[in-house]
């Protein structure tokens, strides 16, 4: 997992398959690593879709609380994305 995080520091995004290839392991192993990294708060899933707070209308919801507000039906089949959380 250290190597995974290290790899991403070059700024390039990668798919799970690419990570598996570069780290010489299987996509299933990468899945496991992502699960753990998410759990300890080293990475987080990027959520583009509307959050529960505003029901997706995004009218009058507080942008500071509501982190994702894509319109309804937009970006349905975009897969998943994780971003690395900067450690301070």
């Amino acid at each position, binding site marked *: 997992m250290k190597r995974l995080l290290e790899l*991403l520091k070059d700024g390039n*995004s990668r*798919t*799970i*398959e690419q990570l598996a290839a570069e780290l010489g392991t*299987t996509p299933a192993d990468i899945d496991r690593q992502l699960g753990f990294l998410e*759990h300890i708060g080293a*990475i987080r899933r990027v959520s583009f879709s509307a959050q529960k707070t505003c029901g997706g209308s995004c009218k009058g919801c507080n942008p500071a609380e509501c982190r994702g507000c894509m319109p309804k039906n*937009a970006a349905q089949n*975009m897969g998943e994305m994780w971003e690395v959380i900067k450690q301070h």
Partner: protein
Amino acid sequence: MSATIALLGQPNSGKSTLFNALTGLRQHVGNWPGKTVEKKEGTFTYKGDTYSVADLPGSYSMSANSDEEVITRDYAGLEAPCFLVLNMEDVAKEQGKTIDAAAIEKKLGIPVMLFSATDMKAYDKFYSTLERALKSKSHLDVSSLEKEYEKLGGYAEIKEQLADNAPSGYTPMWLTVKVLENDKVVSAKLKNTLDDKTIKKIETLAKGGADAVAAGECKFAWIDEILQGAVSGSKSVTKLGRLDRIYTHRIWGKPAVVLTVLLGLIASFIPALPIMGVGSLVDMLKTAVATGLEGAGCPALVTGLLCDVGIQSLSFVIKMLGFVFGVTLVFGLLEEVGVMARISYVFDNTMGKLGLQGKSVMPFLVSFGCTMGGAAGARVIDNWGQKVLTIALAWAVPCGAAWAIIPMLSTVFFGAAAPLIIVVLLLVMLLHMWITAKVFGAKLVKTEDRCGMIMELPPYHKPKWGALFRYVLGRTKDTFFRVVKVVLLVCAVFWLLSYGGGSDESSLLYKIGTAIEPVTMFVGLPWQLFIAFIASSVGKEGAVGVITALYSGTSYAQGFAEAMSGAARAANLNELLLANVTRPEALAFIFAITFNLPCVVALAATYQEIHSVKWTAKIALYYTATALLLSCIAYHIGQLIW
């Protein structure tokens, strides 16, 4: 024999299935004391004994230290007999995996069984394993896990501090790892039980020691070691599909997706053309209706409003709808089959070069539908400067309304060359975004070290045509009603403004128009088109209303006024436009409205997201200026061509 059984496991591992099958109707749901976490408990009898079961919240994907996790791990920490159920045996079999439960059992020191929670016949095995675990009081052998942990910096030292005075109920190993993981709950617990000096010591050791990632690696190394030799047939190397090998290629990826999008957009003209034909038919209706009304003695003003405003607008809107339908279909299809996700992957690096996060691609893609959606979508970007820049660039992406009007106008003016115009507009859009990023980027974003993202691309799949068409038709319908309102209103207002009673030249609008024309012609726009450009700031469809009113109404450009003196009402708007607007002017106009600010609603949405009047105004002014500049350039290039 009797016992309380706690079910521990990851979400979706089948705990609820097992719980329900065991307890049947004898279960109740409550809350854990003092927590808002659901507690599921139930009982079952086996061989005359009653057992109770608790279904614990899945422990893994919950964030560390959440209520759920603390409840679950308090159970996990208990020194109770346990056994391991490897669920979904049927799935493993299907995947051609064989699992040697006995080998795992030997390494772990607890009973291990293969199981299918959905198979009612498998439960006898469950009960017998349960009995076996209770009889043998089996405990997990963690010595090999500890061997891994001992490699961690600071592990041995911290454990030594905890050896004699650890809070009861927890093993020193577990506590030590939690300390290294910087676990808040455990830290608080230790502060209650240990003296300050020991705490200080532990804290310094932890700071210099290994972190959560390293501890996790130990855990995985341990698991791998246990599975070594016990699982076979699992190492299936996934091969990338042929398409993905192209799309995710470092060099060919970009041209491949750009080509895909361009071909898609050109293809979107195919469904649009028949609908344009329908629009022209409606246009032809105008003459018949006008003659009929005039024959019936209808006042010229009413006839004009009905025909020049009503029917003419409708004809235009119908023509636009063909493109709304075509473009929505193409983008919907690209998303549905999974290409859209590849686009966001391919342009991730480009975002970095613009000083943006990879996430910014999504607001851009959404902006093809509606800039407002793009602005709201930029909310996922935490950094304010990057958010402002993302929205500023998203404005350059032609929105749904632009996609309706621009191909339609291009087809009217340039016929078969229209797709070429669209391609050029898209290329200019990319250039525009690049320059805009350079213009605003310096102030908004600092070059900070960027971390790549991890993407799980959705698998390609065949589109669900039914759902896709329902979506596309829904969008087309929505657009129709929205656009028809704006176009009719704008058209009526401008038509009336330009209605000069007897002569067109007497209308105020005409006077103002001709007065400003020397200036507007500098950017290649005759006064009518310039007013349409201004109207397009309100909403792109507004431009169509203005064109309809000013060209099909009574105040034509001078040259045409003469032709109109006869029975020339027959001429349809296409011909009127072609007769009055030169191709360079048309090209200038198309560029001007494409790159004008998207609409007032998008302006408001932008302000709502970035909370800065200064930057909202800056971006708006910048777009108005660049639109006119592009218009000027297009006009002069057009003059060279035609």
